[in-house]
């Protein structure tokens, strides 16, 4: 097709990549290299578990989650999303620890054979803070890093594009499935499906929606695979990248520093140097 297509006034060679691609993010946190942010989120999540007591994880949440989120201007969204993410596990962990903490002596409440103890409450709060640190770190990364940026950065570092593609496409599939579910819900309701009313009615209403959503997604997989094959995705060798997120020696040192600090923390905890 070379030389056959109709060109616009400016020749393709004269135009570069559109300015919106790879445009720096709105805040210093957004502008960090995606791998730096991924390292920060990973180190925060693991440190929250490794650190003992309540003060350490609390300081971690304040400095590694709340402060960067405030700088990035995403604090409210982060609070909402990380609570949503953590709520189911947080509630169950809280109840189990409050009511079933082994060896608790200071009784706060007794409901039949179940007893809530002060020791259990204290431990449950420690668990809650850790869960919030983990969900907050993950949410902060998600809110400040477009998935494609991380994929491009990993690919630049030699990671297989297939791995990046699978990770990125999985994230991108969620909104597509939500949209499909909404369309199917509207179509089923138009045909008389009752999705409102009592809890039982709602549950019954979900069944005819979930089936088409999942089966439809599976049916599309083959066509998606063929579309990718038809565009050379299976070709061996490195892909060309249009841009890559900026990195610096400082950020590289920061990443290594964080990993070394995490390793030191784990070793200190395991050997009892840090009780």
């Amino acid at each position, binding site marked *: 097709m070379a030389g056959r297509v109709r060109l616009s006034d400016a020749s393709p060679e004269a135009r570069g*990549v559109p300015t919106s691609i790879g445009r720096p993010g709105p805040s210093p946190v957004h502008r960090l290299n995606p791998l730096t942010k991924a390292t920060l989120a990973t180190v925060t999540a693991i440190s929250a578990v490794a650190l003992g007591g309540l003060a350490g994880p609390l300081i971690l949440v304040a400095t590694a989650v709340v402060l960067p989120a405030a700088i990035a201007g995403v604090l409210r969204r982060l609070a909402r999303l990380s609570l949503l993410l953590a709520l189911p596990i947080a509630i169950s962990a809280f109840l189990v620890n409050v009511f079933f903490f082994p060896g608790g002596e200071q009784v706060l409440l007794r409901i039949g054979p179940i007893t809530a103890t002060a020791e259990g409450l204290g431990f449950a709060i420690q668990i809650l803070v850790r869960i919030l640190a983990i969900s907050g770190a993950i949410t902060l990364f998600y809110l400040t890093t*477009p998935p*494609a940026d991380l994929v491009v950065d990993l690919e630049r570092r030699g990671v297989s594009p297939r791995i990046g593609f699978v990770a990125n*496409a999985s994230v991108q599939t969620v909104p597509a499935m939500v949209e499909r579910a909404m369309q199917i819900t509207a179509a089923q309701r138009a045909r008389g499906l009752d999705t409102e009313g009592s809890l039982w009615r709602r549950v019954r209403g979900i069944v005819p929606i979930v089936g088409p959503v999942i089966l439809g997604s599976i049916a599309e997989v083959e066509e998606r695979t063929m579309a990718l094959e*038809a565009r050379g995705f299976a*070709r061996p060798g490195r892909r060309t990248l249009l841009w890559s997120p900026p990195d610096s020696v400082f950020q590289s040192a920061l990443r290594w520093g964080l990993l070394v600090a995490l390793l030191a923390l784990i070793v200190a905890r395991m050997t009892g140097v840090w009780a």
Partner: protein
Amino acid sequence: MTLTLQGVGYRYAGADQPSLLDIDLELRDGEVVGVAGASEAGKTTLCLVASGLAPRTVGGRIRGTILLDGENVDAWPMHRLSGRIGIGFQNPSTQLSQVAGTVFEEVAFGPMNFGGTRDEVVARTWEALDALRIDDLAERDPQRLSGGQQQLVAMAGLLALRPAHLVLDEPTAQLDPAGTRLVADAIAALAADGVSILVTEQKTDLLAEVATRVVVLAEGRVVLQGPSADVLDDARLIELGVSAPSAVRLRRAVTEAGIDPERLRG
């Protein structure tokens, strides 16, 4: 640049019967060949075979010979073929990579896979966007476009690989009239620029407008073929489960009513 199918037959893995039998077809420079037929006639299978996806990606067994500019492509891997033959499907959303934040990145996805220089990828991408006159969409999110626009983006993604041949499987099946218009204009423009196109369609109005030749399939075999005006006016179409174009049906209705169709002109 010619794509030739000689005595091609194809059977899906696990199928009792072949889905294509003894297909002889030639697609020459700048030619648009329309493929019509009832459901299950073998239109999609013909697209998969002509593009090389069957059996390479789909599996199954193929007979006969496929030649690209006289060269047998039996041993070619899919990525080598995809640089010469592009294939588009009917659902625009499944053709998008889902990893591109902008239309520009979506269209560049193919050339990026082939690992050329960055400047070459950028030039090819603009060239494809220009060819379909969608360069103004370059910075838009592909997931937020209309179905017609997404179909054009998908086609641009194929064109960016600079294929000599395009295979389009019912590209307007899920589009409204405005989207269909966009795709029809694009097919005509690409053919004028020398790209040869094999397009399957239930909408014979589209074939009447863009195709130079039409092939009609039934039970996996070619049962009618010739210049589009002749084939689409053939009285046997209805028996083959293909609706004639609206202009043909109107002319027949007018004639049956005893009115000279020539009086309706002008």
